[in-house]
């Protein structure tokens, strides 16, 4: 089973270019930080409530990406906040992304291709091998949003992540998104880490907008 962070990377992957969505690095790093925290919560390594985050178990999960994140969160006091954990992890976003992509390659979902743009600049692409896993993630999201079924915990996580990053437009048309908006809002707030991550992304986005008033 893919981790939530890997599913987020897959959703952010552009099949045509073999690159990842052109999200602001700051926001993608925050989303990846949220994803790995959610993965660690699902693996019962940490727990959260409205105010705090508690590390429950430092034993490795066997997933390099999650264990890297677990070590980073382990540098915080035993009882800390979700925002502090997100802050520590988002600053290591490049490494989270590198480990996530490496795992997708290892699983045989992506392949790595080196190339050059205009024969000069080196570029790296990650084409999908057959796209089955991405179709599966999209199908799960569509099934959930178009039904009244009670979600399972992993479903809530991927909706929260995709919504926060604006990636649901890769699954639905604008009109479909509008008609599913109440359901999206209902599901996205069910994960408390997802709520903290979204709050942080809104703040970061506001700060970025202030820095680039004509952007």
């Amino acid at each position, binding site marked *: 089973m893919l981790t939530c962070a890997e599913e987020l990377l897959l959703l952010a992957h552009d099949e045509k270019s073999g690159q990842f969505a052109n999200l602001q690095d700051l926001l993608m790093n925050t989303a990846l930080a949220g994803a790995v925290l959610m993965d660690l*919560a699902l693996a019962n390594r940490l727990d*959260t409530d409205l105010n705090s985050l508690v590390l429950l178990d430092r034993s490795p999960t066997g997933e390099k990406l999650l264990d890297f994140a677990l070590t980073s969160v382990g540098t915080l006091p035993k009882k800390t906040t979700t925002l502090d954990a997100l802050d520590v992890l988002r600053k290591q976003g490049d490494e989270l992304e590198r480990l996530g992509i490496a795992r997708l390659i290892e699983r045989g979902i992506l392949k790595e291709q080196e190339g050059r743009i205009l024969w000069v600049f080196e570029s790296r692409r990650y084409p999908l091998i057959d796209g089955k896993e991405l179709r599966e993630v999209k199908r799960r999201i569509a099934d959930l949003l178009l039904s009244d*079924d009670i979600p399972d915990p992993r479903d*809530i996580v991927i909706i929260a992540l995709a919504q926060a990053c604006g990636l649901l437009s890769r699954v639905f048309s604008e009109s479909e998104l509008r008609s599913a908006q109440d359901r999206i809002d209902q599901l996205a707030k*069910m994960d*408390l880490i997802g709520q903290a991550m979204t709050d942080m992304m809104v703040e970061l986005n506001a700060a970025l907008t202030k820095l680039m008033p004509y952007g």
Partner: protein
Amino acid sequence: MDITEQKSGGATVLQFSGRLDGTNSATTDTKLADAVGRNPALVLDLAALDYISSAGLRVLLKAAKQAQTARQKLVLAGLQPSVKQVFEISGFSTLFLTFPNRDAALASLK
């Protein structure tokens, strides 16, 4: 965290007491999955539940999904204000039928 099980008419009441969090979510998950599997109508009496974390919410979510899949009834009763606040902020209040106390919850299942 303690869970006690009682029969009341055609329904079963599980009374939770203490804290439901990541330290006991795995065992609670197992107990609840077993109870949902055996009982077509279940009241989770949370009047003595002082605290619920994200891990606790996931346990209840899985039970609700299991009950929905099996077309069984699962309702909640007696949420304390602190637990009710978590339910409202997380939107879990939209997933469950909740009642102020056990008797009201049992009456809804008749």
